[in-house]
């Protein structure tokens, strides 16, 4: 099982019609089962676009994406999203007309899971995210703080027990303490369930804490990819050197 390729990008580029430069530029990348790959880079460097490409929300302009050695186009993308990928969106995207419970269980409902199972799952996930179910189950998103919304967004992504988890700046709006706790939970999750995680962040400390490997993105390309040690010891560009020492400002 170790070192099995779960996702592969081969020379993938993405051009938006409205943009002059490619948002993702000829990226080749292999993600292995059970690893946590952290994408870090300044805003606009193409991190979100890369995640969307992995999830099929955007189609690559060129290059190909393989999921378990088969081209992504050969899969039923909807089924893939429902069972194989979990996604925490940068803009969270909770459904405002649904309660916390309904937001978390929605994909389970689409998958026709029985009610008892869903209720159990929702309660577990809320506990896991440090949210008291008695308090939060029947609240609506606009009755939550930004941090609480983010945690519900993470719970929703975890509901399907999918193998892969894409998390786009999931802890950006959290206070330092909660953020620290949840980072620990992610590590536990990874260990316990061997989840493959692609995690986007702004925060170099978070990247080092969570990432087995870290990919530094800048203007649509990956400038360097490697372990914390590799990046700290041999930063390839001045940009990375600065990042390592001062973080992103």
């Amino acid at each position, binding site marked *: 099982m170790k070192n099995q390729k779960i996702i592969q990008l081969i020379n993938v580029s993405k051009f938006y019609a409205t943009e002059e430069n490619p948002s993702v530029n000829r990226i080749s990348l292999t993600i292995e089962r059970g690893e946590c790959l952290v994408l870090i880079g300044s805003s606009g460097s193409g991190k979100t676009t890369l995640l969307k490409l992995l999830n099929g929300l955007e189609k690559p302009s060129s290059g190909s994406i393989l999921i378990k050695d088969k081209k992504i186009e050969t899969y039923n993308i909807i089924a893939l999203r*429902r069972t194989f990928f979990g996604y925490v969106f940068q*803009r*969270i995207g909770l*459904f*405002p007309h649904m309660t916390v419970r309904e937001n978390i269980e929605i994909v389970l409902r*689409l998958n026709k899971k029985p009610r008892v199972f869903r209720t159990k799952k929702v309660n577990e996930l809320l506990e896991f995210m440090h949210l008291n179910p008695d308090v939060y189950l029947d609240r609506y998103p606009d009755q939550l703080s930004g941090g609480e919304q983010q945690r519900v967004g993470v719970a929703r992504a975890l509901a399907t027990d999918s193998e892969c988890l894409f998390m786009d700046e999931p802890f950006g709006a959290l206070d330092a303490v909660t953020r620290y706790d949840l980072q620990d939970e992610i590590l536990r999750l990874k260990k316990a369930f061997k989840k493959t995680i692609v995690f986007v962040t702004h925060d170099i400390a978070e990247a080092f804490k969570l990432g087995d490997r870290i990919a530094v993105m800048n203007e649509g390309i990956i400038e360097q990819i490697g372990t914390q040690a590799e990046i700290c010891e041999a930063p390839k560009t001045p940009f990375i050197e600065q990042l390592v020492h001062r973080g992103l400002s």
Partner: protein
Amino acid sequence: MLVGFSLFLASALAIPLGILLVRFSFLRHTILRAGSISQTIPSLAMLGFLVPLLGLGNVPALVVLTFYAIYPILRSTYTGLISVPPECIEAAEGLGFSNLQKLGWVELPLALPIMISGLRIATASTIGIATIAAFIGAGGLGDFITQGLALNNSALILLGAIPIAFLALAFDYGISQLENQFHHRKKKGSRSPRLKTILLGISSLGIVFLGGNYLYQEHITAKGTSITIASKNFTEQYILAELMAQLIEMKTPLKVVRKLNLGTTDIIHQALLKGDVDLYPEYSGTAYLTILKEPPSQSGEDIFPKVRGAYKDKFNLVWLKPFGFSNSQSLAVKKDFAQAHNLQNLSDLALIAPDLTIAAPPEFLKRPDGMLGLSQSYGLEFKNVMQVDPNLMYMAIDHQEVEVIAAFTTDGKLQKYQLIPLNDDKKFYPPYHCAPVIRATILTAYPEIYEALSVLFGHIDEEKMRRLNAKVDLEGRTPFDVAQEFLVELN
């Protein structure tokens, strides 16, 4: 009922169309623009246009109501859908919703408040237009209003208007409740299914009711022993139609269906050709100018034989013998006004017309035998022309908002409001002999109708007609009573 059903139908058409517009930019602007233009078509014109195609009654009314309800619903569906937050759509896609699930679980629920506001607009305008539907015999509360206006009976008007106002309020309240259901947080998940059941119940009830009503109507007419008598929407027509109806009921085994409130000459004529109406009183002059579209002759010759011949040849409609009076159109002024300005003839009026305001029904203003021809023939130029309902016209002149109105020479109201009709000294109008017009096939099938009506032929002169009109208009009696009384008198 008609309102509810047409809203239901309009939603069924407009919501899917709205969804398609969001998905496909193709034709989006054309359709939205066409929709907004469609709202500016006058509903009465639309009704007139539909009668030749669909006949009278509920069907064309339903079509018109639905037609006007579609655009607000379409527009609000479209606006509602494009205002769904993009991050919600992205999340739905990213989590693996199919297109249909995305629509049903996310887009429509989030668009709903806006869609409901569109539904509200549609409801208000539909209820408004529904009152007009009475003109094509769709009945309903609008009937009270149009008849009340025609008979100058304010109780009748209120009888229609108050429930309509309440109906509008009730609909609005119902919809706002619906809106609250979705807006305010439902406390328990079981609440929305119950709402759905209620809605489903209401709409199926509506369908059953309408269906039943329709079948019942079919049942009546299918028996073939009934004859439909129509009238235009003014007093004299009601009385004449009642006279004929009661005579036929009395002297033949035929059943009579009364459609005593049909809007314009054109609507009745089309209904006659379609077979929705069998018999109604018409005036030779109106037929000559409006239906046969002959130019005004100005010779004052009797055109009755010409009209009778043309109707038989062109439409297979038979003019029975005239009742005995001629109801010409003319312009009327207050008696004291006439004295003060020394007015007797229309020619006299032409001299001071540029200082005067005239009120007249829309039909009169547009007809070649109305304002158009008259003003050419006499060189009439008014300072201002007000287009009003025939019955509001009298109020207008009584309250001195206007100095001149269009009037019929047999109108009982002339007396009440102290008006005198001016003399048509240039003989612009042909004599307007009034007689029953009947479908030839009906007359052949039931020749006894002729027998039954014959007591009326030549027995109602202008004086009598004015008296009958006055009994309804001034004494507030019903056309039914007045007709009954007159028949007793005749025998």
